[in-house]
């Protein structure tokens, strides 16, 4: 065996190929690095924290005490009151332009029409009722003072950034590994490679090594942007965060490997990738908490790798949780890592 320069080793060359193929594909660079930032910016702006806007309510013009009631409510800064005729009121209530319609039957009887499954309907009912009861003479026994606290880490953007990071790790793991392998198989490049003395393990290890390289950039850029622009906190230790991200990237790489282990066509692989990822996008708590789903399906949802990743990232970033505190999540991620790799290596077809 001749001594050779480190750069002439198969693992180094195969990893270089992965990096070169990736950076020479502008679309891949966009979806991996730029898109999550645009997404963060968009969501951060759309859901920026602001005082609740006044509740929009309407008084039915045809009701007996309409004008008196409307007059009693105007001037309240928590309410925006309009007087509407029957059809306009029904239409605006249906389309959500007003949250509640008041029908004052007499001085002592008022009907509230609202949808109690909508949060703003219920909130409007409480605001209107308070305002109306006070205007008609109710006296509150307790004096109340409001102290408003706005904490970094409890805003929507704080919630969504760890979710986007998890989603990004999932996407680049499954797509990055899956497509490259299926493409090489389709082009018979895999077959050509196994016709050489190339160590097969080096081929697969190169995917993981390159994924780790991209991970640093991918996660770093997103967290830096979120921190600088929106002040999203990083309360946990950075090495712990890095370890969570690393384990997640490897587990998702294993998922990509598994998805690509037999597919010969890009179309077939795309279908399988969507089948793998779409349920996690929905159930794993990227944009809203996974706890919104019924208790019966929670065990399933909690077992999904992306749920564990998102939970661990949020616990670290927002609550400053230690590795020990996210041990259950890390166990789930590790289990996925082991199972997907073991299965993928068993099923993998080189031709």
């Amino acid at each position, binding site marked *: 065996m001749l001594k050779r320069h480190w750069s002439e080793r198969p693992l180094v060359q195969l990893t*270089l190929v992965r990096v070169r*193929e990736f950076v020479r594909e502008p679309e891949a660079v966009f979806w991996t690095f730029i898109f999550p930032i645009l997404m963060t910016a968009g969501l951060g702006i759309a859901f920026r924290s602001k005082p609740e806007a006044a509740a929009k309510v309407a008084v039915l013009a045809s009701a007996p005490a309409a004008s008196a009631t409307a007059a009693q409510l105007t001037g309240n800064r928590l309410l925006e009151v309009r007087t509407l005729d029957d059809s306009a009121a029904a239409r605006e209530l249906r389309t959500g332009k007003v949250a509640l319609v008041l029908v004052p039957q007499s001085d002592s009887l008022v009907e509230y029409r609202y949808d109690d499954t909508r949060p703003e309907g219920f909130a409007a009912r409480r605001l209107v009722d308070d305002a109306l009861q006070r205007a008609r003479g109710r006296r509150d026994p307790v004096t109340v003072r409001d102290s408003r606290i706005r904490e970094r880490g409890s805003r929507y953007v704080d919630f969504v950034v760890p979710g986007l990071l998890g989603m990004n790790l999932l996407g680049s793991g499954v797509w990055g590994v899956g497509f490259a392998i299926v493409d090489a198989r389709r082009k018979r490049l895999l077959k050509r490679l196994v016709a050489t*003395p190339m160590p097969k393990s080096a081929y697969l290890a190169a995917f993981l090594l390159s994924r780790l390289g991209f991970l640093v950039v991918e996660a770093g850029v997103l967290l830096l942007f979120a921190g600088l622009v929106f002040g999203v906190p990083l309360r946990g230790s950075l090495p712990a965060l890095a370890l969570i991200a690393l384990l997640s990237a490897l587990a998702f790489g294993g998922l990509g490997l598994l998805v690509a282990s037999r597919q010969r066509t890009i179309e077939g692989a795309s279908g399988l990738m969507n089948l793998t990822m779409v349920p996690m996008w929905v159930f794993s708590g990227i944009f809203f908490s996974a706890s919104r789903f019924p208790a019966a399906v929670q065990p399933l949802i909690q077992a999904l790798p992306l749920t564990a990743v998102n939970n661990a990232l949020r616990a670290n970033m927002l609550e400053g949780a230690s590795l020990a505190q996210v041990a259950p999540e890390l166990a789930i991620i590790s289990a996925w890592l082991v199972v997907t790799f073991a299965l993928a290596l068993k099923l993998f077809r080189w031709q």
Partner: protein
Amino acid sequence: MVPAVSLRALRKAYKDVVAVAQLDLEVPPGECFGLLGPNGAGKTTTIEICEGLTLPDEGEVRVLGESWQGNGRALRERLGISLQETQFSDKLTVGETLQLFRSFYRRPRPLTEVLDAVQLGEKRNGRVGQLSGGQKQRLALACALVADPELFFLDEPTTGLDPQSRRQLWELIEGVKRAGRTVVVTTHYMEEAERLCDRVAIVDHGRIIALGTPKELIRSLDAEHVIEFRVAGPTSLTSPTSPTDKDLLALDGARSVRQHDGRYLLESAQAHRTVPALLSLLAARGLPLEELSTHSATLEDVFVHLTGRQLRDA
């Protein structure tokens, strides 16, 4: 001397299609051996079994004296392979692709030497996606050359190339032959086999139906010339005055006759006697000759003679 390739009673079936049926073959070292046959004849299956990429259902395979069981890695060090239709990554450069393949071998040839050998030195920093078909095939050959192997397996190295690129590849393969390496090449181009190969096996339906040097195979026809002709008129082949096979075989020097695509193919041992006899036969029947050509018999004619089919439409 240990044969470079030795196949005994090889058999491979895919579901109910028999790709290789009872195939025996021996290729001595230093020979350029051609597997010749139409598409689907079983050439690629045979060569991929030799390359250790496909497992045979039955039979014995020895490559450079070794079997594939347990020796894969060491054996691959000694082989240079070019598969049918491999697409290398478009986004890598020629140099990067070759560096990758060099990294797999213990004693690779220097990069520049290989680039020069396949005349891609100027394309070293060019993307693979920008190469012409001929350049891509030369890159594929270069990936086989980096190992400096003892034995080459080239599966249809010139399919789909223009004549000039094809000749360029032939010259490269002849260079490999001159360096004393063994080459096994599959092709469905007769002229390629005639030019490159020391010996040729004609393969059809997974069997070897003829084996020998191109000269021997052509001589086996016992007819060095093929006379092709057509008589005027749309129904010339079936009209009552048309010459029958019997009429034609009676001509001086004629050995066999075949009709294909509205024309006669008459194999002859002595064209200078057969042609005048043919002309007087046609003149006597009042049949105007529309087309007449003769050529020296080729491997194509051997294939037609053995199977009754043209290679191209087989």
